[in-house]
């Protein structure tokens, strides 16, 4: 079933120079496996094509049921130089949670209960 990531995951974002990092945390181990296949760096880069100009790198953090995405060249120069309202990528986590993913019904029941 197609759902937004926010139904099955949490996220937090911040800045690293002109890159933002978005940590994504699955709500169950089974969902982490599903996201491992679906929340690929390519898909995340496409989702953020209006923000991210430099590509996306993904790190796995299985012990926290998490992934860390680095969105390179995403902050208009970063920190103090940027003219953007969101110069620190603070909103990028909320943006990632808006991405569509396909989750089997039985896994959804677990998190909706």
């Amino acid at each position, binding site marked *: 079933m197609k759902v937004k990531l926010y139904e099955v995951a949490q996220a937090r974002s911040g800045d690293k120079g002109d890159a933002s990092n978005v*940590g994504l945390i699955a709500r169950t181990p089974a969902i982490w496996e599903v996201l491992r296949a679906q929340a690929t760096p390519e898909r995340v880069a496409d989702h953020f094509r*209006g923000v991210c100009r430099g590509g996306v790198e993904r790190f796995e953090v299985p012990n926290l049921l998490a992934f860390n995405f680095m969105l390179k060249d995403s902050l208009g120069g970063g920190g103090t130089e940027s003219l953007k309202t969101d110069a620190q990528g603070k909103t990028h986590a909320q943006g990632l949670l808006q991405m569509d993913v396909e989750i089997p019904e039985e896994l959804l029941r677990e998190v909706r209960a």
Partner: protein
Amino acid sequence: MRTIRIGNGQGFWGDNVDAPVELLRGGPIDYIGMDYLAEVTLSIMMRQKLKDPRLGYATDFIGFIRRVLPEIKERNVRILANAGGLNPRACRERIFEVARELGVKGLRVGVVEGDDIFLRLRDLLAAGHEMRNMDTGEPLAPVVDRMMSANAYLGARPVVEALRQEAHIVLCGRITDTALALAPMIHEFGWAADDWDRLAAGTVAGHIIECGAQCTGGNYSRWWEVPDLWNAGYPIVEAREDGTFTVTKHEGTGGMVTVGTISEQLLYEMGNPREYIGPDAIADFTSIRLRQDGKDRVAVSGIQGRPRTPFLKVSGSYLAGFKTSGQITVSGPRAVEKAELAAEIVWKRLERAGVTFPEEARSTELVGTGVCLPGIFPTPAEPPEVVLRLGVRDADAAKVTRFGLEIAPLITAGPPGVTGFAGGRPKAQEVMAYWPALLAREEVEEHLVVSVEEV
């Protein structure tokens, strides 16, 4: 096993001023760490110090000390802060003045110095230390004349030394936020300088609590689940000698401590999770185990570390031109089109006046139409209002100032429904850009000075 309680009462300069007082009075606590320095705060302090040699530290910290001074000494709660900024000795003098005013005697205040390498930059370059920008790879030498501050991120050791000399308050400049939590653990448990797993554990503990309420329910994805966020308790680490610890908060406070809130904070500002590089050790975040251990208690264990690197990170700032931004609110029918027209008016008038900015040095944002996350949310067809936010950046302050003159005329000479212009003409502000670099650690460590004095 013996436990010590280390809290964070301030995540950054500008954080809730009541939080550290609540942390002190809300229950048992042994150490309170206070973080005041963001990446370019030191450049602001440099300006202040140049104007007045008695300034250059976080003045908010004095207000806090005034509120709690007799109490922290009586209860022996020790305060560790990077509030010293570029002038920790002046900060100590001010604390001593407050102590005398309040009749507090026997207060011991430690100062850590040696992080400030600003005056040594040219010598270090001459000695072959390139200090290239870690983000861009550019060498420092061509920029050195524009540098405004340069400080090495110190580790926990000098703070441990101040604690050994029985300081009630330790004032540092550029110390890592994590060291404020790690130092009490080294001091209390006597961890060895090569006990990498435990040093990494203390570093992780520091990382979890360094942003204050951001691990106790603030900025949390599932915000609707957080009780009484207005009254969120600030975090406390119950540290144990074996390097395991529990994150919690005082009873009766709002917010929450769950595996969810801690996991989010662990990933905050994270790069490669396998190597979180601090001055005291490298921590492997893929080794961390979290377990909910009752309400508002998360037990943390399993942390593995690796040897520290031969470098310390340097945080520099340099003058990189000027910028400003101005905004108006555009309301009523066809608000988006009207805001676009208003922006066109500003840019065309500036062009006619001979003031132009390259594309990457000017911005036009229609706040309310999805500027933070373009393309991710559907743009509302007919928003009742939008905020037009225009900004420019240039090496020439006069050009930036000239831009600032063009916002107010929109009220009478732009489209209808324009309001919300307040605060006067936008003024050119100096841009302090960030220069992260690496420096051989012995170049800094040989210059460290720890002094503890008593009033």
